[in-house]
């Protein structure tokens, strides 16, 4: 991964901070842990529940030390049931709690879809806004870690297709801190996706004071004039690597919020560059790239100098270790897509 500090500069304006805040170097999973501790100290209705989150501290150690600090009624190891975790968290949220359930891997969420669809996303609407559902479901997502099956999923589309829920994805430690804090404080249900591939891969200075980042604004990672790359999570780093390696001035947008989308920022960028590549780990068919491509077609077609290309995972089951690198988009696939739209002529 290496040092990418030039791409990861802090936007202290956005954080409502002085230009040079006190910072600490940390990786993404440490930022998760610190943010959970911060929010639990700030609001006693924040309760964590999930599997292996107690004495073990989470399979990725996101909740390490929190049981000791906050006790078993705020850091709750549950029975092994994702549907039970999400269903009881929903019941707690109805009663004024602010649960932060952890699902161990995104591929383990499937049994919880019943509670998610029936209770989590619908209750606010069904009560005419009377009962809120302020819960943030944390899930590591994505491949690239040589994991077993169901440990590499990027199934954000299932959630993005559903009304009544926000879907947020962090791409760096500093982003994680601000976005996770804002998600927990937000009164809507939030699916918070953590790119496990870079839990420990990237360190950067993270301000030690509290701050939040907006859930409704995409982040311009780097400005450019030739081509826009729309991406999020771990793929932001592939986009950066590809941008450094092509003969084009690349603009990279980290969506941050996958639902709802910051459509203004997306359209402004594509209208400026006239070219667009969507880069995501998820399968291509009805992956979020399909919606992004459709939106750009609907609202910026006449600004396009080339068709939109989607550099994504393939429409196949996530393969075994031996060939997973061939499944996942990497720097090369991102670069090829950028070069393809740069070379296209109508």
């Amino acid at each position: 991964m290496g040092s990418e500090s030039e791409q990861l500069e802090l936007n202290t304006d956005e954080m409502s901070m002085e230009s040079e805040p006190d910072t600490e170097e940390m990786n993404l999973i440490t930022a998760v842990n610190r943010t959970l501790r911060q929010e639990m100290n700030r609001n006693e209705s924040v309760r964590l529940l999930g599997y292996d989150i107690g004495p073990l501290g989470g399979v990725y150690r996101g909740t390490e030390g929190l049981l000791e600090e906050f006790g078993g009624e705020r850091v709750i190891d549950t029975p092994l049931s994702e549907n039970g975790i999400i269903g009881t968290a929903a019941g707690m949220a109805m009663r004024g709690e602010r649960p932060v359930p952890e699902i161990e891997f995104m591929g383990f969420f499937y049994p919880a879809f019943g509670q998610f669809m029936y209770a989590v996303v619908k209750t606010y609407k069904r009560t005419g806004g009377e009962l809120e559902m302020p819960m943030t479901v944390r899930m590591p997502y994505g491949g690239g870690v040589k994991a077993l099956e169901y440990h590499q999923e990027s199934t954000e589309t299932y959630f993005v297709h559903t009304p009544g829920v926000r879907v947020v994805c962090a791409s760096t430690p500093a982003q994680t801190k601000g976005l996770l804090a804002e998600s927990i404080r937000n009164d809507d249900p939030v699916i918070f996706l953590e790119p496990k591939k870079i839990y420990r891969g990237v360190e950067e200075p993270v301000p030690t004071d509290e701050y939040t980042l907006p859930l409704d604004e995409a982040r311009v990672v780097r400005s450019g004039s030739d081509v826009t790359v729309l991406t999020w999570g771990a793929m932001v780093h592939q986009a950066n690597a590809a941008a450094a390696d092509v003969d084009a001035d690349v603009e990279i947008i980290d969506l941050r919020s996958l639902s709802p989308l910051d459509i203004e920022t997306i359209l402004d960028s594509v209208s400026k560059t006239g070219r667009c590549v969507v880069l995501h780990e998820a399968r291509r068919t009805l992956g979020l790239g399909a919606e992004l491509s459709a939106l750009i077609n609907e609202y910026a077609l006449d600004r396009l100098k080339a068709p939109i290309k989607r550099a994504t995972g393939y429409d196949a089951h996530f393969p075994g270790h031996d060939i997973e690198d061939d499944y996942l988009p990497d720097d090369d696939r991102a670069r090829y897509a950028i070069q393809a739209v740069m070379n296209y002529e109508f």
Partner: protein
Amino acid sequence: MSQKTWAEERPPEDFYRILDPEGKLQTDAPELADDELLELYRTFLSTRVLEEKMLNMQRSGEVSLVARTFGEEATPLGGAAALQSDDWIFYTYRQTPALLYWDLPMAEVIASATGHEPETIAEQLDTEDPPVNFPPGYTPIGVNVTNAVGSAMADAFNDRDTVTMVFTGDGSTSQGSFHDGMNFAGVFDVPAVIICQNNQWAISEPSQRQTASETFAQKADAYGLPNERVDGNDVFAVYEKASEAVERARSGGGATFIECVTYRMGAHNTSDNPDLYRDDSEQREYWEDRDPVDRFETYLRSEGVLDDETDAEIRDEIDERVTDAVDQARSISNSEPERMFDNTLHERSWREHHQRAELHRELNGDNPFVDFTGEGFDG
């Protein structure tokens, strides 16, 4: 009768009972004052009158779908009567007596069946919140069990003495969410009372197709939950066992599971035709003889709590209340179409603004597909 109908299997009757089908006490009645007894009677009757009225409204097309509690009233009524103000009831579509006992306005019950948006009902009905808390009624039963247990976990963690009661059915015991709720209830020892209103039918399938267990109550053994099996048509039995469970929950003793054995006298709902799947020629008569209201009325009269005059007063009062409620519900005008977007998220996103504007244009007879820049447009 088609051979394809299910044969009914009568469940074992070694359950707890206080008031027998003839209205005679088998053991001591719960300690309830005369006015409390009459309140139960009033709720029994108001449920029947209201649901009969809603059935008529369904036939005339005013209400899209009605699922009646008819014949099962003692279970939700006895359960709900065991609660106190500030408690929570997670209900489904066959617990009307629980709603009426705790004064959820009848007009709201009707309006929830007429298909209005929740915001419209809240805005146009000038009603007071009931003294116990009702989350919205659940259609997918079983889901509510897990949510109710989460609610009770919140009470336990906050050292509140509130109790959460949840009603589920025989069919929903096959659902994962039922299992999850029961399991979490046991593990976290929560102040909840889980009531299985076993009416022996889940739409077209009888309880022997839901489980090979002899009873539903015994399922609770596997979760480490104390459990009871009672005559679900005996309001005293349900009330007494629910009261014990509520007391256990409130005093930190954890959750209880109660199977109330009753029988679905009618169709699943007004869209259902049970003749296609059940031959109730034997069971119907059997359960008609065990009607929960008849036996309670017989008891009240034998005890001198109810006479013809009081009965007539109560019935007149109910007729008046139901008529008023129907008038109120009928006065609700249809929602503005844009209301479908309300309370999706707390803030309006671009797509919400945009799609609201599109809908608005369409309603005005204007072409909604006129934005080619994404800069938005006036509705």
